[in-house]
């Protein structure tokens, strides 16, 4: 087994009275796409948010690249984790280019560095450069999702979390963007953890496929 990016050790978490999982342990490899397939409401989204510290588990430890997640300095840790969600969450008051470059601002990158990297990424995911100065609402759903991806990986994080990012796209757009993701992964491999309820998508993208059911994870491929 290659390098371990994420190590979840004995996680237990409940949401109100509902037990989402009990004593869950999992290791996720670096530089691979791991897809967690599960029904909506199964808690797979919660699992992702536990990894980037948006949710603190009731019990258990999260380790990223051998280091336990430092909740006291969580902002810094998150700069190393790309995060994209289904609703994309582009900031409506910022132009496309500024949305993409925002993490660079947080990390204190120089303007040149931000601009160069943003232009590079836009090209990589086939976003025309004329979109740079548009506002998010002027873009199609697929284009917005591409912008979201660029933003998530601007800082070239070793880890990216994708929370059903493509489920609201039409099949053609979805197919296109799947190609972009695979291309990105070839160009700059990283540990991608994606949750989805779409088995076809899971098959297509996943190097490792996990099924999440009744709080249990089972390997299927």
């Amino acid at each position, binding site marked *: 087994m290659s390098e371990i990016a994420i190590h979840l050790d004995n996680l237990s978490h409940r949401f109100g009275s509902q037990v989402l999982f009990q004593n869950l342990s999992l290791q996720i490899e670096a530089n691979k796409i791991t897809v967690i397939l599960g029904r909506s409401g199964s808690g797979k989204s919660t699992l992702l948010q536990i990894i980037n510290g948006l949710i603190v588990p009731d019990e258990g430890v999260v380790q990223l690249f051998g280091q336990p997640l430092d909740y006291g300095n969580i*902002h810094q840790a*998150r700069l190393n*984790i790309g*995060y994209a*969600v289904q609703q994309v969450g582009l*900031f*409506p*008051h910022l132009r496309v280019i500024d949305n993409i470059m925002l993490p660079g601002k947080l990390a204190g990158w120089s303007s040149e560095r931000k601009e160069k990297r943003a232009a590079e990424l836009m090209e990589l995911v086939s976003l025309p450069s004329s979109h740079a100065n548009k506002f998010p609402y002027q873009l199609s759903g697929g284009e917005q999702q591409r912008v979201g991806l660029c933003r998530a990986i601007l800082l070239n994080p070793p880890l990216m979390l994708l929370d059903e990012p493509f489920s609201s796209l039409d099949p053609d757009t979805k197919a296109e963007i799947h190609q972009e993701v695979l291309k990105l992964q070839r160009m700059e491999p990283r540990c991608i953890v994606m949750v989805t309820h779409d088995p076809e998508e899971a098959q297509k993208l996943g190097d490792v496929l996990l099924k999440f059911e009744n709080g249990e994870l089972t390997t299927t491929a």
Partner: protein
Amino acid sequence: MRILSIIFFLLLTFTSFGQVIKVGAKHFNESYILGEMLSQLLEDEGYEVERKFNLGGTVVCFEALRTGGIDLYPEYTGSLAEEILKSETRLSLPELNTQLQKELNLEISSSFGFNNTYALAGTPETFAQLQLTKISDLRQYRDLSMALSYEFLKRKDGWENLKQAYNLQLDPVGIEHGLAYQAISNGKIQITDAYSTDGEIEKYGLTLLEDDLGFFPEYYAVAVFQANLPVQVKRIVSKLANQIDEDEMQTMNSEMLYGGKTFDEVARSFLQRKNLASGSKSRASQGMLKQIATKSIEHLSITGIALGLAVLVAVPLGILLFVFSSVSRPVLYVVGLLQTIPSIALLALMIPILGIGKIPAVTALFLYALLPILRNTTTGLTSVDPVLRKVATGMGMTVFQQLRYVGIPLAMPAILAGIRTAAVITIGTATLAAFIGAGGLGEFIVTGLALNNTSLILQGAIPAALLAIVVEFVFEWVEKISIPKHLRS
């Protein structure tokens, strides 16, 4: 608190410095004329006089006098005894003077001569029809249309006690005194309260009901001032002793209200007729447009300072309330409570603390402007899409970064809308600030109301309305240049 008291002390010393005598007057015509007479007498002897003639009633004038906002003002013995000393018994003039000195370190001058007591007035036709000649005749009626001035409704020697003394069953409504006569001559109301020297009694040919139980105390006009007023000034004030009788006062009031004369002219010609003043000096009076411009600028500056301060306090406070949301509710309740205090009452409440003039007015307006800005800031931040907040947090933003890059920019339309609302409220409310001597366009309105002079009211009301509209436009423009089109509401 310590800083406040230092500022207050500085203001006090600053305002009482120099040989400027500050003459006040209540906002009705007779008080203007008497205040103007006192001012002219003083100016004739070389004093510089600052006129503060729009003070909103006995309590405002009195608090202004007590806190040094004014040095003297014309008052009536009955008002002093009942309203200020809360005396249970009728006091003679010397008794009144002794008590004022002892309890408040204030003095009064000799009487100017006339007794301007309260009376109930109506048209002779109405009174004949209802067979009314004296107040006790009112006992048989339950639903006459009676409108009384707000001050009379509240006074100790006003309606409530009159009603008890005469055992009356009537249920009056409140009306601004300046409007009552018009209402009575239009037949809109049947009875109102009047002062026995009101010019309108003559002008509208009204009849007064006889006070057959002798309920109303005497209201001799006097000047009231602090005991430490320079002797020289007291001597000048005493020149008016026993110079004016009821008829002369009624005529002067009528000249001013219906003869087209200003109170400046009325006072001057009277003093000349009585050989009390040379009348050589005349106050330079500005043209109307220039006056409107001056008052508009004054109005804008009061409003602008109050609004600016409110923005400086309410926006950061709104942000803090969003971050520490557990305290947000109680704070918003308290600020909301401030908003429910009627503006004129809030202005009056400022006087004991801050005296009269621009400072209490700005303070009151500031308090009024807080809520819309505060609430919109907090609401604007709270209503940011939770997905955006999740993404911002997930991206690694600190609370401060989230506010800076996401929350505040997205709440900006709401914040601006709050400031805009506050600006319009403040411009409107600032017209009332004239009641506590803050100046501005309200001075025209308040004077116009007191003098029943519609064109004077419009002279203040139209520019104030225009200002509000202009401010709306300015904010619209600011919104246009600062907020992308798709984010505007």
